[in-house]
């Protein structure tokens, strides 16, 4: 399949004038991506279960029912009892920690592979000239047109896309991992700096929950972008690796 698409599977596929197909994603990216979809889905669902069994957020070291909270689900129309009936923290904990390991191992494989092959530098890291205000505002205007032939044919990530992927890989994931570990008494004992870093277990729990919202927003935008830039072609490329160049780009 790969060889029929193009002779080379370099990280920077060049659109070809003679072939209708290009190799867009290497198998490592594809495998890691779909494992991430499964692990991320379970992490989100199980995380919601855990949260619903204690639907309040606090700041600092201390937080319990009756202690001043910074967020209460009951203020938003779902009572403690109703939330408790929806949430199953035992199921949630079992699956959250299981898929945290799947996510972590998958992420380490992806990171080592990407650093080794130069994937980060070639595909994910924005070029300096792309970060100029004029370039960014141009791309933003382009995005506000929702869908365009250029985006439907794009075989490289846009700058905003690179920035958001880089943020998720290098900032979001490490922070979610650390705020998660800071909540675990075994890890907080071994690494007491975790508690100092976030200023307490409840702060870590609150940041972890805010991170969940960021994750949902990322997924929503990501899926929306896929839908707007040729859903079938994009999803097929993430499954088979091959991307079909639209007519006008050939």
């Amino acid at each position, binding site marked *: 399949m790969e060889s029929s698409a193009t002779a080379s599977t370099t990280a920077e596929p060049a659109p070809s004038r003679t072939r209708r197909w290009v190799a867009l994603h290497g198998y490592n990216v594809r495998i890691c991506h779909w494992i991430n979809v499964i692990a991320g889905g379970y992490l989100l669902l199980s995380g919601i279960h855990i949260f619903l069994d204690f639907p309040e957020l606090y700041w600092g070291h201390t937080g319990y029912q009756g202690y001043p909270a910074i967020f209460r689900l009951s203020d938003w129309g779902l009572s403690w009892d109703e939330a408790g009936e929806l949430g199953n923290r035992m199921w949630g904990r079992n699956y959250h920690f*299981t898929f945290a390991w799947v996510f972590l191992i998958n992420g380490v494989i992806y990171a080592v592979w990407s650093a080794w092959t130069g994937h980060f530098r070639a595909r994910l890291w924005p070029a300096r000239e792309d970060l100029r205000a004029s370039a960014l505002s141009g791309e933003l205007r382009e995005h506000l047109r929702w869908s365009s032939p250029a985006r439907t044919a794009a075989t490289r990530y846009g700058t905003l896309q690179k920035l958001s992927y880089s943020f998720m890989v290098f900032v979001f994931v490490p922070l979610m991992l650390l705020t998660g570990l800071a909540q675990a*008494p075994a890890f907080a*004992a071994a690494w007491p700096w975790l508690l100092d870093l976030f200023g307490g277990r409840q702060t870590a729990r609150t940041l972890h929950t805010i991170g969940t919202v960021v994750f949902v927003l990322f997924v929503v935008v990501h899926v929306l972008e896929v839908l707007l830039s040729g859903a079938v072609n994009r999803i097929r490329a993430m499954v088979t690796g091959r991307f079909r160049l639209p007519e006008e780009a050939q």
Partner: protein
Amino acid sequence: MSERRAGITRRRMLVSVPALGGLLVTGCSDTFRPPVVRSGLIGAADVLTMSTSRWLQADQPLAREYGREHIAPEFPTWGQTNPDDERYQQHVSEQFRHWALPVGGLVEQPSSFSLADIKALPVRTQITAHVCEQGWSAIAEWIGVPLSLLLEAAGGVKPEARYVVFHAVDGWYESIDMFEVVHPQTILAYGLNGEELPVGNGAPLRLRVERQCGYKNIKFIQSIEVVDSLAGIRRGTGGLSSDFGFHWFGGV
């Protein structure tokens, strides 16, 4: 921090428990994997979680201890708060004067300790965060006897000892392995925030195992049993929480 704190060094604590030798020689896998490994991906994750935690805890770090200013205005009562048991209620009305704790199983001298006996043993006071697996946490001062010193008062544990099992008045039971037993902060608490341990928090005696979640910190302890295997006890998973489906290792 407290004039009542016993001068227990980590070295003395480790040397004082004969089981540690056995732990290092034969029972190493106990330290890294739960007594019953669940099936499938969840069981694999359990082993990864426990072995990673224990690997990071190789030098037996203490859980963070806080200053008095961090003590929560009130310590929540959760779960069982007043066992409906005639004999227990009798003990409550007598301020536990006739209450006694049998310590049996694989100890050299199976014994029974009154609350006064237990309070006569070296005291450890620690201000720590109780981390409930549900999500809440509260800092409180716990006063009690290090579990290893109570076991020493029962003659010490036999070399084949691997787990300590706690049975509670309300039918709850829980167990911890020797890695946690020898830890200086693993205490049997009879005091909370300078007062006698209230009924709502597990009077007269509850476990504090500070590097694990709330559900391992069993309340209303009525007997202690040292064993080499959890297989014959109740459903064999090592605790009522793990019978329900929680991970036996409560470190996360």
